[in-house]
């Protein structure tokens, strides 16, 4: 059932194209029924999960690699899956109304459904590799959604940032997960179970003790922090606000950015509760929590303001995981639910304001309370929940966060740091919320606003933010029920089954006092929001710009490197190869091999052997210094003949025959080739280059000679030659062992040789045939018309060398007479 849910989410993607048709608002809500169906199906599972524990489904995929399609539905997955499909339903309906006039809605919904499938896959996966596959899919679909308005450079830039950052994080995550799997195998988990999430978590305590734990976690953290936009990888999230608002509300507040949080929460019972884990998460999460809240209220763009408060909230979630303990787990799941509700409502209302007034700039808004009263109510409720004002669900969540910090088991300074981060963020949220509300709804309307005919949107659009906003208000009434639902989720994070009770008012305690103090300070500062916003507390260095410069730098470096290495000249490549050879072979040879050369024993050569061999260097010098082509051909042929003679002298009659035959053929070919090439060799290179090459060549030759001598004295392996000799007659029915090897023992080599020759033949035929084709074209006008467009290049090329040919024929005849 879980697998079919994920598959269904993917399968419904093409249906998104239906939204190309009018009326889009209606089609949108019709399509919203698809995710709603999954939502309902998941709701029916709540009872099972709460009472009977996780549902597990396994499908073998690549068992040898430990890859299986394993899906698990426990409390935590259920919470996320319900948020994904529930908010998803509202978003799809909202998108239909929001993009009513945009024909691209079809494409948009396709991406959105694909994303939904991927995200469901992430939270339902019970195997880390399966999870990784879906994880990467969310990055890709997020890229498509951010770049939806691809005609705008900002959208492309935002999409590129998000893909590069989350893609990089994804790779790091893969490395981390593979290391976790390796560590699991090390501590005795079965190979096919090594990537099974439950197995990894069950073996958690042993894995923590291995050497792989530290590096594996470093990579997993990188993956989680990039995905969840933690400092210093936070800047892609504000950039991602270039996506259409429905996508921002869905991906970049409620679901995808929480994938990193989900991953850490998932691993927490096994990998958590170590100094590395706790201190890293408290530091990074706490800093992002406070930092995001403070940057948020300086923003003028509503979506940017919400984006920064989102990344701050994500920091808060990671802080909760870092603080650990029962309260940490409880606070985490409560915060996740609270945040998903109010933040999606806020994003959707931001979209509504943008849609109605044509701007999201807080300086150009104002006085909307009379024009958009219903929107104002929704925004107000959602903001109250975000601020953590009593009786809202956000208040409950904040209470629990404070409790998690106060009751944490960590060593002295860490819980206090967490507490400070929570309080700073609480104050920051109040200022940000007030700034949003005041500048958008209170005061006098901006002249721009009055120009538009601004009014509340249709119900089809308004209902989507209204549902989560009112849920933030109503959930505190059903806290016992919410607690039952959240308990399994908290248990999954904590690692042991337990239940807890959320409550609105638990008497006067530390948490409540801190909370009220934060509200007080927040309200006080909120009245000064304009002055605070103008004050540049945080340096204005933009992470996005730094990142751009980094990417440009990498590209410039790569271009420069490629230009230097890839010169397009064979000589340069050969030089690289030779230098690499000097380093890899030459240096070890000088160190280890020279002794072998000195110890060599040699019987004295015969006179005729000396003559034959000494003709080779003579021939080489003649080839190099030859002024005419015919001289070079003669010299090279002589070398070939000497090589054949060497084969004769040293017991290789077959080789000598073949060599001689091939040599004759080569000489004929060379004569033919050189007859059409320029007559004399010119020295293209300056003298110093030639001397340099000569030195390199001689050094290479000496090294090779040395290797031959060293090889003659070294015998590392038992030769297999005796085997062939012995088996030749019984195995191959032949006395000439060379022939038997060629046609019998190693006949596939011969087959390969024939194939090479055949390919060479076809290629040569193709190369030479071009001439013929050209003459056909010239001879008849009708054939010219039948030439395909692709052949045009050939015609052009041939047209150009006509003159060459005519000129070349008589001159080459002349040359041959002269030589």
């Amino acid at each position, binding site marked *: 059932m879980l697998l079919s849910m994920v598959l269904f989410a993917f399968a419904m993607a093409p249906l998104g194209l239906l939204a190309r048709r009018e009326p889009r608002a209606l089609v949108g809500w019709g399509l919203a029924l698809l995710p709603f169906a999954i939502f309902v199906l998941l709701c029916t599972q709540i009872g099972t999960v709460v009472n009977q524990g996780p549902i597990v489904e396994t499908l073998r995929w690549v068992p040898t690699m430990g890859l299986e399609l394993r899906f698990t539905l426990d409390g935590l997955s259920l919470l996320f899956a319900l948020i994904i499909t529930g908010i998803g339903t509202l978003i799809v309906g909202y998108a239909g109304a929001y993009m009513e006039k945009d024909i691209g809605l079809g494409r948009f919904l396709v991406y959105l459904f694909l994303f939904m499938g991927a995200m469901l896959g992430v939270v339902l996966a019970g195997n880390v590799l399966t999870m990784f596959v879906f994880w990467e899919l969310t990055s890709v679909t997020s890229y498509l959604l951010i770049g939806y308005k691809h005609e705008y450079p900002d959208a492309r830039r935002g999409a590129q940032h998000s893909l590069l950052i989350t893609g990089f994080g994804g790779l790091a995550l893969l490395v981390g997960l593979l290391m976790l799997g390796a560590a699991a195998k090390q501590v005795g988990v079965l190979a096919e179970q090594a990537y099974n999430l439950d197995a990894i978590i069950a073996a958690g305590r042993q894995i923590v003790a291995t050497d792989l734990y530290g590096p594996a976690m470093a990579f997993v953290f990188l993956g989680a922090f990039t995905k969840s936009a933690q400092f210093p990888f936070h800047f892609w999230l504000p950039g991602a606000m270039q996506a259409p608002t429905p996508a921002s509300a869905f991906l970049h507040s409620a679901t995808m950015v929480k994938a990193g949080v989900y991953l850490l929460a998932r691993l927490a019972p096994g990998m958590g509760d170590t100094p590395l884990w706790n201190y890293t998460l408290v530091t990074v999460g706490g800093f992002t929590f406070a930092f995001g809240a403070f940057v948020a209220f300086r923003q003028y763009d509503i979506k940017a303001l919400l984006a920064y408060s989102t990344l701050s909230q994500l920091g808060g979630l990671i802080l909760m995981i870092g603080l650990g303990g029962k309260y940490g787990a409880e606070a985490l799941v409560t915060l996740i639910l609270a945040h998903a509700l109010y933040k999606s409502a806020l994003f959707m209302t931001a979209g509504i304001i943008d849609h109605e007034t044509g701007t999201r700039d807080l300086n150009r808004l104002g006085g909307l309370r009379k024009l958009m009263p219903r929107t104002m109510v929704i925004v107000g409720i959602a903001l109250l929940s975000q601020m953590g004002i009593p009786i809202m669900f956000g208040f409950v969540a904040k209470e629990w966060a404070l409790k998690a910090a106060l009751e944490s088991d960590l060593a002295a300074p860490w819980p206090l740091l967490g507490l400070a981060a929570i309080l700073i963020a609480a104050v920051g949220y109040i200022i940000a919320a007030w700034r949003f509300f005041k500048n958008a709804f209170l005061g006098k309307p901006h002249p721009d606003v009055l120009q538009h005919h601004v009014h509340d949107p249709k119900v089809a659009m308004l209902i989507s933010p209204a549902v989560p906003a009112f849920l933030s208000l109503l959930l505190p009434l059903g806290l016992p029920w919410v607690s039952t639902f959240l308990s399994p989720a908290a248990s999954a994070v904590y690692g042991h089954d337990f239940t807890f009770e959320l409550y609105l008012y638990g008497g006067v305690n530390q948490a409540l006092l801190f909370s009220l103090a934060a509200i007080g300070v927040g309200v006080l500062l909120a009245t000064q929001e304009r002055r605070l916003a103008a004050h540049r507390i945080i340096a204005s260095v933009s992470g996005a710009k730094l990142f751009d410069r980094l990417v440009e730098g990498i590209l410039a470096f790569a271009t420069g490197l490629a230009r230097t290495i890839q010169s397009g*000249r*064979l*000589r340069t490549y*050969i030089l690289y190869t030779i230098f690499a050879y000097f380093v890899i072979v030459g240096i070890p040879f000088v160190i280890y091999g020279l002794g072998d050369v000195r110890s060599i024993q*040699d019987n004295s050569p015969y006179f005729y*052997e000396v003559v034959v061999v*000494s003709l*080779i*260097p003579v021939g*080489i010098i003649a*080839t*190099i210094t030859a002024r005419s082509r015919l001289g*070079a051909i003669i010299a*090279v042929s002589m*070398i*070939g003949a000497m090589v054949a003679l*060497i084969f004769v*002298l*040293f*017991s*290789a009659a077959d*080789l000598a025959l*073949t060599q001689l035959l*091939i040599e004759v053929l*080569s000489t004929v*070919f060379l004569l033919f*080739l050189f007859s*059409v*090439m320029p007559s004399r*060799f010119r020295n*293209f290179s300056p003298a110093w280059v030639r001397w340099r090459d000569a030195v390199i*060549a001689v050094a290479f*030759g*000496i090294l*090779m*000679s040395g290797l*031959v001598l060293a*090889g003659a004295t070294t015998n590392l392996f038992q*030769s297999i*030659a005796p085997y062939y000799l*012995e088996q*030749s*007659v019984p195995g191959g029915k032949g*006395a*000439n*062992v*060379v022939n038997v*090897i*060629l046609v019998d023992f190693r006949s596939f*080599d011969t087959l*390969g*040789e024939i194939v*090479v*020759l055949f390919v*060479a033949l076809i*290629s*040569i035929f193709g*190369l*030479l045939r071009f001439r013929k084709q050209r003459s056909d074209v010239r001879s008849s006008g009708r054939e010219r018309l039948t030439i395909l467009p692709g052949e045009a290049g050939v015609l052009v*090329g041939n047209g150009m060398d006509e003159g060459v040919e005519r000129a070349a024929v008589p001159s080459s005849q002349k040359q041959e007479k002269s030589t």
Partner: protein
Amino acid sequence: MIFLLAIAIGSLFAGAVYLILRRSVAKLILGLMLLSHAVNLLIFTMGDGGVRRGALPIVDYYTGEVMPNTTDPLVQALILTAIVISFGITAFIMALAYRATQAMKTDDLDDMANTDRL
């Protein structure tokens, strides 16, 4: 005699490298031919028991008995294949050089590298 062969192979490699580093297509082809000679001889020296005079890679046909002075047949079989393949490649490069020289009116590799100019 291994000294003699070492000198032959070393000079073949040196000559091949020098010719391959030239800018002329014709010299490149000559260099490749020398390189294949060099490599064949290099393999030749790597046979079981080194190079020998007056030995044959042949066994007694009737008894299948291995005679005392028998040379390594495996390297010979490998070189035989190598000779033919290197010939096929040389022939292909010759045809290519022929076409390239015709089309670009030069045998300078540096001029050929920049075909966009044509």
